């Protein structure tokens, strides 16, 4: 059988001191769908980047059809038919769909000019075959994340790459879009493509994959036939509470001994399912959003129209939408980066600090905690040290009488960090920390005692491993118990369903659904609302429909 194998790959990053891959091995059979699963930091992405030729291993080898190869550049890997569909697609903003797809491999007319007709024909044909609804001459800037991903997939196919590596493809998609993607992947497999899919969500890929490789701490735990593994076992393997199997038996796994360790499931948090019912709801409204509309400066991106909801003390309100449907704008409004063109916002009865007014630090009694979705650009300044990132939020406190009080800053920062279980030096530069640690530091900063009366969390558990996520959820529970109101803006439907008392769905900038989370809502239902299909539990949507 034709195979592509990664053997004993090791990779060490000296700048961060991380052993990303440690003797990892993976064997890929052509014409199959192969999933690579593991927690954050398990080494999946590094291994795949090595396979795609974007990184060089310190030791180990890549073997294709029993012949060792060395990928000096991604282009060399491409010649062997290996192409990567990145998690954040490398879309060139000013180009059209077809220009993006053909980029770098444009067919030529008389050797110097691009043959645009050939490109157009090929793109149209590919779109039709895979069922992609893309307009070849459309500018990519106006399209959503799902379309960008489709463009990347088409790009690799355009380059005649038959081994596609997809890096966390479902992280930016809604439920229905995920199913469409899986249909496309199955179609490609039927045509002879080989698919490698990296993910940390095992549930999704059990439906899709033929082979599964589990990774942990840079090592391969094992490679398993998908039919022999169920969700529970997979979770155990990923977390390491199951005994690893011998790694060189593909498809033949030794029967795991029954252990006395309980299967690891996410803790049942004391959220939702009627935690707050209508009659014991604290009537104090912390946040009132009253018919706000945002006329965005960029006419292409959707605006917010007539959005109204309120969040009471101690309530968690989950807000979800597909990318490009107004969630980002709502975050910008609540976070103080955008001003609604009409409507009212109130915070504890008083006017909300809207742009250009500034929010107060989370540890102030009238402060607002805000964990942004773009953590690297908005949540921290990577030129500063960790403690400087903390003191930036409250200059009045840390610069009494105008002059710096470094001692106080260091103490408080250290306390907040340890409180959240982040063990880093407060004085060190923040740029050296990993993405997950930075996220934890931001959470430590925003969610420390004294808790802010209003907390805006945007994708808070993105990039966190399960332990940290549990810690985060416990902290959120504590905050609710002490009266904070939480707005949870997330694209992670599991998170929304787990935590929220109430769920609001946005579609094209309007409220498409405002539902009580009574435990009966499914991800499919939310997905339908996010796509603008199906009825919601709210009358507002019905009347919007009729007025259109």
């Amino acid at each position: 059988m034709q195979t592509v194998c990664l053997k004993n790959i090791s990779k060490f990053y000296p700048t961060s001191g991380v052993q990303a891959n440690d003797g990892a091995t993976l064997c890929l059979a052509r014409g199959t769908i192969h999933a690579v699963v593991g927690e954050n930091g398990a080494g999946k992405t590094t291994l795949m980047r090595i396979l795609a030729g974007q990184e060089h291993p310190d030791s180990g080898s890549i073997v294709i059809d029993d012949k060792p190869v060395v990928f000096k550049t991604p282009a060399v890997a491409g010649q062997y038919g290996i192409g990567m569909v990145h998690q954040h697609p490398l879309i060139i903003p000013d180009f059209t769909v077809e220009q993006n797809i053909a980029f770098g491999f444009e067919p030529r007319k008389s050797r110097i000019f691009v043959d645009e007709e050939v490109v157009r024909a090929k793109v149209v044909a590919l779109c039709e075959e895979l069922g992609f609804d893309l307009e070849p001459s459309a500018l990519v800037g106006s399209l959503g994340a799902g379309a960008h991903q489709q463009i990347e997939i088409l790009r690799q196919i355009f380059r005649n790459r038959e081994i596609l590596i997809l890096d966390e493809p479902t992280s930016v998609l809604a439920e229905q879009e995920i199913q469409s993607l899986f249909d496309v992947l199955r179609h490609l497999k039927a045509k002879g493509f080989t698919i490698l899919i990296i993910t940390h969500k095992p549930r999704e890929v059990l439906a899709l994959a033929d082979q599964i490789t589990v990774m942990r701490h840079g090592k391969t735990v094992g490679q398993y036939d998908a039919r022999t593994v169920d969700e529970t076992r997979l979770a155990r393997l990923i977390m390491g509470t199951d005994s690893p199997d011998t790694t060189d038996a593909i498809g033949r796994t030794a029967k795991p001994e029954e252990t006395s360790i309980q299967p690891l499931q996410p803790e049942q948090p004391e959220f939702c399912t009627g935690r707050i019912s209508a009659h014991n709801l604290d009537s104090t409204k912390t946040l009132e959003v009253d018919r706000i509309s945002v006329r965005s400066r960029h006419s292409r991106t959707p605006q917010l129209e007539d959005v109204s909801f309120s969040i009471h003390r101690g309530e968690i309100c989950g807000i979800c939408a597909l990318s490009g449907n107004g969630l980002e704008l709502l975050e910008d409004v609540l976070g103080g980066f955008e001003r609604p063109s009409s409507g009212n916002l109130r915070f504890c009865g008083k006017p909300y600090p809207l742009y250009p007014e500034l929010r107060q630090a989370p540890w102030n009694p009238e402060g607002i905690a805000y964990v942004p979705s773009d953590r690297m650009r908005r949540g921290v300044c990577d030129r500063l040290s960790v403690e400087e990132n903390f003191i930036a939020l409250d200059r009045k406190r840390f610069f009494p009488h105008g002059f710096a009080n470094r001692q106080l800053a260091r103490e408080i920062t250290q306390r907040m960090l340890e409180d959240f279980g982040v063990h880093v030096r407060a004085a060190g530069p923040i740029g050296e920390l990993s993405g997950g640690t930075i996220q934890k530091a931001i959470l430590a900063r925003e969610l420390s005692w004294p808790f802010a009366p209003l907390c805006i969390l945007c994708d808070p558990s993105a990039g966190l491993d399960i332990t940290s996520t549990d810690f985060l959820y416990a902290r959120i529970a504590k905050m609710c118990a002490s009266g904070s109101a939480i707005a949870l803006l997330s694209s992670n439907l599991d998170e929304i369903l787990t935590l929220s008392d109430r769920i609001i769905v946005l579609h094209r900038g309007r409220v498409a659904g405002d539902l009580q989370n009574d435990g009966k809502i499914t991800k499919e239902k939310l997905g339908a609302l996010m796509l603008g299909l199906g009825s919601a539990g709210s009358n507002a949507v019905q009347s919007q429909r009729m007025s259109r």
Partner: protein
Amino acid sequence: MHSAERKGSGFIKVRPAQMTLKSFWQRTRITLLALGASILCIVVLLLLFSNAFLDSLKLFFVVPFANVYFFGNMLSYAVPLMIAGLGAAFAFASHNFNLGGEGQVYAGALVATVVALKAQGQGAQDVLTVRLVALFAAALTGGLVGGFSGMLKRRLRVDEMISSFLASSLVVFVVDYLLAGPLKDPNSNFQATKTLPSAFGFAKILPPSDLSVSIFWTLLLVMLGKLVLDRTSFGFELKVSGANKEFARYAGINGDVYSVIPLVVSGALHALAGGVMIFSTYLKTIQGFSAGVGWDAIAVALIANNNPVALVPSALFFAYLDAGSKSAMMGSNVSTELVTIAQALVFFLITATTLPRAFGVHNWWRCGKARAAEEAATKAAQGPQQ
């Protein structure tokens, strides 16, 4: 026109609380390299263009120390470089490019002269107050010119690099016109204002040179600058706004203010430098007398890496080069533009964040090690299958 991210490229650092020893040495290494290269460049240029190489070498490098007159004048030129350099550093610290230094210095000088002349014309006796008022007026003018670019940036997102350059060029033309016309001293052959009586100047401390007490005031100013930038919340907010505008807004810092204020301060300091030049040395404004001070100030700030304390040795270095070129020009056929060329070399090297492999002995060693590792990897790739 271009984003602040593109400006970043690592050369303006909001220094973390602890700079590692390694990064300090790397930074200093580059600075020393730049300075050394500029000296070497001058030597080479003298070799190429001077008709008396050894003489001009001596004139350039030795004569500035030869006697009190040259030495004192050298120190005296360092004074406006320090002040204007502080202005440039302020702008850089907030990630703003103030390219209008030339015009701001020139305008400041003229305003200071005119105010003092007016006061003298009305019979003012209190020289101290007159100087103070004149310098304040100069700073105000510079602040307005700088603030103009700042407001354009804040309100209209006009790139301050271009607008400050254009505005400053306009200011230079206006001042040139005034010096050739309405404000010209009718009794002089030069395009210049009337001369102020020497009582109006700063007290000289090293006659016969021009060095005056202004150097002490300037050192104080530099210390004040360091205090503000490193220890106050204003300085902190300024640096953060420059480093990451989005984060600044997130943290509750009003970044708009810091588009304007650093440019106002920068303009004011440049103009102040011009005024100080008048009261230290010239006592009148001559057309083109301050040409080059603005660009020198940028070079000074770059070498000092926007650290106010480092501005002092940096300004002294450039004053030394300037003094050398003037003395070489007087004694031989060498023209003063040589220093400009050396300065250009400094600009090229000073913002380097890495040195090419050729420039470091231990880099050769690391080179070899890397090559060995690559060979090992290739061998490993081929090995097991055989």
